[in-house]
């Protein structure tokens, strides 16, 4: 069983990155003091970065870095994130896999919003997955990651076996 990297409160996959569910529901529930967005597209987009910065409440540390930089930061022995309790946001399931393959331990992975796309099937109100993503999540689970779908903390979490069942049904 892998240990949570120092300073990481939760790793979340969310196509929308910084939005209301993250700031108004997760931040207080996790008692998080910082947000780290690990996403190449956001890191390269000035407009997206400045809009996100605008929404971050005062007192919460905020960083947007490329995925590779995040992996180096969060790997054992890396410099670690800015805050003592950081919420790490990733855009896609494949980014979580990339972080894991780069040596970042992810004991718990929360899936918040993964939008519909060709090939993806609906497994919860706000999460759509394709077969490749589901098997990637399976691989993470075998490596010791607890995978859950939960948009906001007050919801009951859906776990990987339920996701698989729903995928087959859909």
């Amino acid at each position, binding site marked *: 069983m892998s240990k949570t990297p120092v300073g990481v409160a939760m790793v979340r996959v969310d196509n929308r990155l910084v939005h209301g569910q993250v700031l108004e529901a997760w931040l207080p529930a996790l008692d998080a003091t910082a947000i780290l967005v690990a996403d190449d597209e956001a890191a390269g987009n000035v407009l*997206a970065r400045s809009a996100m910065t*605008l929404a971050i409440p005062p007192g919460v540390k905020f960083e947007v870095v490329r995925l590779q930089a995040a992996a180096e930061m969060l790997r054992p022995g890396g410099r670690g994130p800015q805050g003592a309790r950081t919420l790490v946001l990733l855009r896609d399931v494949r980014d979580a896999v990339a972080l894991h393959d780069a040596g970042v331990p992810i004991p718990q992975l929360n899936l918040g919003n993964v939008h519909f796309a060709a090939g993806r099937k609906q497994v919860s109100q706000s999460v759509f997955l394709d077969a490749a993503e589901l098997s990637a999540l399976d691989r993470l689970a075998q490596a010791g990651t607890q995978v859950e779908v939960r948009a906001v903390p007050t919801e009951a979490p859906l776990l990987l076996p339920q996701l698989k069942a729903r995928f087959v049904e859909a």
Partner: protein
Amino acid sequence: MGALGRVFLRSMFLQAAWNPRGMQNLGFADAISPALADLYPDPVERAKAVARHLEFFNCHPYLAAAILGGAVRLEERVANGEAPPQIVSSFKSALGPPFAALGDGFFWLALRPVAALAAAATQPFLGMGCVLVFLVLYNAVHLPVRLWLFATGYLRAEGVVDAVARAHMASGTPFLKACGAALAGAVAARGILHAGIPGRPFAALLVASMIVLAWATLPRLGATRAVYIALGVGLVVGARFL
């Protein structure tokens, strides 16, 4: 100008067909259609533009007005051949989520509860007038802000982020929430006094302790169970003592 007015009016129906796959996409495409009709006289081109706007979109329904205004301005650039269509799409996806967070935090979690609490706290003095207190407090902020966001989005396009940043929308939130907490206290006092009015100090104490107990257990119980327990407790003590 006529088209812009219609776009703003249709923005009021942004969530009419909210769906898990595209969220506010149908509402957005429908709202921007009058502007597209002016920009793309050829129906086939126009249908293509509408189809572009059927991509995923979600935001706070009020803050979306800024993005809608900005999208109209960017569509003008696209129609004039000054920019590729992708700029509209990337503008929408860059601003949607963070603006949603701003709107959720300010309107849903600060202004609305505070306006409602102000109404509940003034009801003993104003009677039916308290309904107007709620509607006026809320909409005197909501409607002008929504209009300003739409106009600023249209006039400034990408610059709307700076304009919203300078408006410091979120800076009033802590003050609003403090007012809300104080008003909630006043409302609680009203419940206590009302139960205790005709010389029933025991009932007043009972209600006061139920407020504290409910406050402590609500996160675990949830509102529905808490209300049923309250109804049961009330039945028992009501029959005995009141």
